[in-house]
């Protein structure tokens, strides 16, 4: 063996030794992968079917709930529009622009619900004569009824009453309370259970 062959042999050995000393790389444990069942028995199919039904029912219920919520919101909005009070200036039965707008908003509801009947209650603030305020409340209720009638709503569908200052919305003595108490309120006296929102 010449010198060249010895060097080569030693190098091979060294490399083999170094290679033997290196940390052996970790390998992931081998797990058994289940083999897909090629066919679903009856029990399996029932489970799938039940799951899909539940999912469908849930979707339908959610849709129904959303629809009901929307319907309730629309009905609540309808009722709120119908019940919204209109307000007056001191010692006046004149309908302001805001009051006319509030009454105009009720018109589609009244037209969509021909069986609906309303009681319009006129109210006043606490200032002034108790009895004269009853007459003033009557005038306010009559002014509202007259306006709705002029817009085509049958007067037979509306009753009027005055509570004067006897039923304040706010029982305080302040400008704000007085402003809120000078009002006409609306109460459904018939047809409320068949109420539909206008389209």
């Amino acid at each position, binding site marked *: 063996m010449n010198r060249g062959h010895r060097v080569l042999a030693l190098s091979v050995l060294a490399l083999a030794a170094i290679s033997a000393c290196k940390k052996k790389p970790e390998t992931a444990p081998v797990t058994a992968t289940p083999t897909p069942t090629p066919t679903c028995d009856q029990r399996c199919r029932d489970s799938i079917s039940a799951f899909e039904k539940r999912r469908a029912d849930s979707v339908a219920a959610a849709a129904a709930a959303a629809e009901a919520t929307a319907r309730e919101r629309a009905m609540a909005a309808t009722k709120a529009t119908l019940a919204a009070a209109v307000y007056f200036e001191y010692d006046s039965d004149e309908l302001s622009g805001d009051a006319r707008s509030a009454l105009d908003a009720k018109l589609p509801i009244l037209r969509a619900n021909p069986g609906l009947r309303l009681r319009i209650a006129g109210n006043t603030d606490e*200032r002034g004569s108790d*009895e004269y305020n009853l*007459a003033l409340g*009557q005038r306010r209720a009559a002014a509202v009824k007259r306006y709705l009638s002029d817009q085509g709503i049958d007067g037979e569908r509306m009753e009027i*009453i005055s509570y004067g200052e006897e039923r304040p919305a706010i029982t305080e003595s302040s400008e704000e309370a007085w402003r809120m108490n000078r009002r006409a309120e609306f109460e459904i006296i018939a047809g409320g259970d068949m109420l539909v929102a206008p389209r």
Partner: protein
Amino acid sequence: MTILRRCALTLLAGLAVVISVAVPALGQDTTVTGVRLGIVYAPGTRPGVLVLPVSGTAGDSIKAIIERDFTNGDRLNVIALEAAAIPPFGDGNTKPNYPLFTRLGAAALLQVTPTSFGIQVDVHNAGKGIVERTKAFPLPAGALSPNWRLALHDVADEIEQWITGVRGISATRILYVAGGRVYQVDSDGANAVALTSSGIAMSPVWNPAASHIAYMTMGSTGQQIVIREVGGATRILPTRDGLNMTPTFAPDGNTIVYAHGAESGTDLYATNAFGTEPARRITVGRGSDNTQPSYSPDGRRLAFTSGRLGHPEVYISDADGTNADLLTRDYVDQPYRANPDWSPDGRLIAFEAQVGGRLQVMSIGLRDRVVKRHTSEGVNEQPSWAPDSRHLVFTSNRGGSRQLWVLDVESNTVRQLTHATGGARFGAWSPPLRSR
């Protein structure tokens, strides 16, 4: 002394007598009726009256009630002395020491003696040193019962008439509304009793005989007028649907006028109070509000509130609604005058007017149209005259809640009448309630 001088002196003496008789009359504000004692007092002053201690189990109550009635009448000055401080009055055999009582300020001494059927009253004229009047009064059984008290008030009123020439107002009652119910209370604030048990009532009034009352009830579909016999049955006045309120009886007691409101304003209507005749409209407000009627004592005129100028004012018309004239005008800062009540003597109309945003009680003379403002503290409204045309009951919140107060329009002094829980309003003073 010459004949001429003697004639002049005689004339002066005669004038002095005339003046001494005439001047006290000027101090009285109402027509003098009935017998009047010869007690002379200067205008603006009140004769002093000393009520002597009264014996018997109800003696203290009798003395206290009579003294309070005199005080509330505002025409007599009750001399309040402890029993021990009152000088000996004599035993019937000896004459009372009248000069001493006069020095105590007593123009009259009132001696009340219980009897088997009531009381005997002796009124002594301390100035003259004589017994001026003596009368026995029956009282019902049951001391301190409402009827017994009313009878005693009647005695006090008659004594007041003996002394001042003007009958007292103690034997009266006042209607009012508290908690939606109609109540009546004695003029001294005692015996408050509910007359209705349910519903929401407003605006009660007496009929002239004080045998019936009328008031408005508020229902869910409108207001109705109820006529109720005192202590008896009720009936609903036949009216059209809608607002029916502020009833008032004509002085003859047969006609009732009320305000009816529908869709074209509120007008006054007249109808037979106890019959079924159709109501006839007596105002034509043309969409305005015409309410709160009050008859003149002769029944020929009506005062009422009308908004025909665009704001409430008091008008006077004939009883059939014709010839309506504006009574109140713009003399305060706000054009709002309402709730007239015609005084029983026909001279004044009390009403309420807004001043600085608050209602105040005022009166206007029908001859001179002079307006007097009677209140300033708090909100004061709904005046109603006493039979003496000198006192008003009205609603005021000056004490914190709305209560009834009594005002003497001569002195503008007030006293609180009710202390109702939750407040009281709509006071209506009765005619005299004679117990005998």
